[in-house]
């Protein structure tokens, strides 16, 4: 199973699309690893610096409809190769969400009030989070406090995370 913990990258915007996560001009790469330097390169978010802000992070907290647009799995891959296997949002675009679980990575959906709370309490601090797929609990902490957020994880999605993705899961089954 992939590491589902790390320092949080806060992206305070809805509708972040896959062109912003990994611009189309890099889709000519034939290896996933080659994508690594271009993570969130075109993200339209004041104050965000892709060269500095992605490094050392292990999770993203953002708003609604993350990963909309193109079907490119390069979006989860570029996160994965930057050690980010976990994205927490109000909701996700369907293809991006499926791509994450297909790679054995995880999307967590939380209600807007809880996302608000996480931004209010933890954004701007050195926040760390860890997701436990068995207990279906997300734990977020900084030097002041720790908060827990139970989330829903369907049995199929959980099986994909545990198997390390859809190919591993399906190859034995179909």
């Amino acid at each position, binding site marked *: 199973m992939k590491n589902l913990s790390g320092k949080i990258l806060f992206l305070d915007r809805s*509708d972040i*699309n896959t*062109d*912003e996560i990994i*611009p*189309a*001009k890099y*889709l*000519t*790469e*034939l*290896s*996933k690893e080659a994508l690594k330097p271009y993570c969130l390169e*075109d993200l*339209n978010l004041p104050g965000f610096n892709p060269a500095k802000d992605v490094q050392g992070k292990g999770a993203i907290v953002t708003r*609604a*409809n993350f990963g*909309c*647009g*193109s*079907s*490119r*799995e390069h979006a*989860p891959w570029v996160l994965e190769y930057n050690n980010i296997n976990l994205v927490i949002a109000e*909701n*996700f*675009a*369907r*293809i*991006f969400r*499926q*791509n994450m679980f*297909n*790679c054995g990575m995880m999307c967590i959906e939380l209600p807007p009030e809880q996302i608000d709370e996480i931004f209010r309490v933890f954004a701007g601090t050195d926040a760390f989070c860890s997701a436990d797929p068995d207990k279906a609990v997300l734990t977020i902490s900084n030097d002041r406090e720790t908060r827990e957020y139970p989330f829903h994880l*369907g*049995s*199929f999605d959980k*099986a994909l995370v545990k198997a390390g*993705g*859809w*190919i591993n899961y*399906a*190859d034995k*089954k*179909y």
Partner: protein
Amino acid sequence: MGKTTAQKIFDAHRVDVPEPGISVLSLDRVFCHEITTPIAINDLCARGMDRVFDPAKIKAVIDHVSPAKDSKTAEQGKVLRDWARRNHIQDFYDIGRNGVCHAIFPEKGFCRPGYTIIMGDSHTCTHSAFCCFAAGVGTTDLELGILKGVCAFHDPETIQIRVNGKLPDGVYAKDLILTIIQKLTVNGATGKVIEFCGSTIDSMSMEARMTLSNMAIEAGATSGICPADMTTVEYLWPFIKDEFKTKEDALREYSRWNADPDAEYASTLEIDASQLEPVATFGYKPDQVKPVRELAGTRVDQVYIGSCTNGRIEDLRIAAKILQGKKISPEIRAIVSPATPHIFKQALDEGIIDIFMDAGFCVTNPTCGACLGMSNGVLASGEVCASTTNRNFNGRMGKGGMVHLMSPATAAATALAGTITNSPLYHGERNA
């Protein structure tokens, strides 16, 4: 209780239920292009599983960058080409015979009502114009589809979009779908299927229906299904004439996929087509839509007519009607990209290419290039493009560039004026 089209297709293709509400479906078609497939191919090779579930059900094309623009894109083409040969995929469309995937695959008759279709491309929903469940997927879903011929989906809730009335002159399927996206918002249909119906859809050509279905994803929808009718049968007839005695037989067979009158929908959106006017996008999201008249006078640097949304013959004919005998503004440049070689030849035969060239358009070979800022019309920073494509994301057609999505008619009129303007084919309130 009646069923929606999506429910009927799911019920006919379900091979497993890994969790209640999730279905693993058998696939009738797996479409492939050179951007999202090579990494799947390389992974299959690395796993020692370089095989395909059924070479006749897999179709492949080089379209996103065509011809190759550099060594990397040449490699991508080579991986796809070698794989297609190795695995005996007969329907592989190499440079010269290739077109934009969502235009060439329907043109070759690969879509049939009731089919399940996946492709590693978000605009795969285009094919649901043929009463298919067609969905864009990522590379891993594509990879497993190639290998096993199955894909997992959540059982879809369906939004019914009922469109009645006659579209006013100069108002097209593109204006309709942009208006629908504005109403639904960019994630208003996320995880859901759209099913279109109503007299407006019934009177649309397959080309117009493909424009409509193509942009279902821009509201987040998995698929945007049009019902099967005689228009569907007529389009497919050259490919199915040996399967059916008469067109009526084909219609009877295909109609069984249409939604039952008592099917249950998550919601229904009613639209009066007669009240629509030409629209265009103004921001960086496809739901930021305004009447063209409110954008009139907006300066553009480039006009682009093409793509899986609006690069078909009907689109080129409409644009040519507006451009005939006229010149584009000397302040701008304009590009037209017929979506397939067949469309290109039709446009040549009909004198449409002459009209474009005489007007001052650059005519390119069929490719997706400009739409996603890959090649054949990339914008410079600060530039603005009036485009018949489907995405206006920040930097989509080139870093720092801005895109206004619109119909081919509006794009052609804009090319002449050099600023966004309503087409002369629209007789409503003009350039207020």
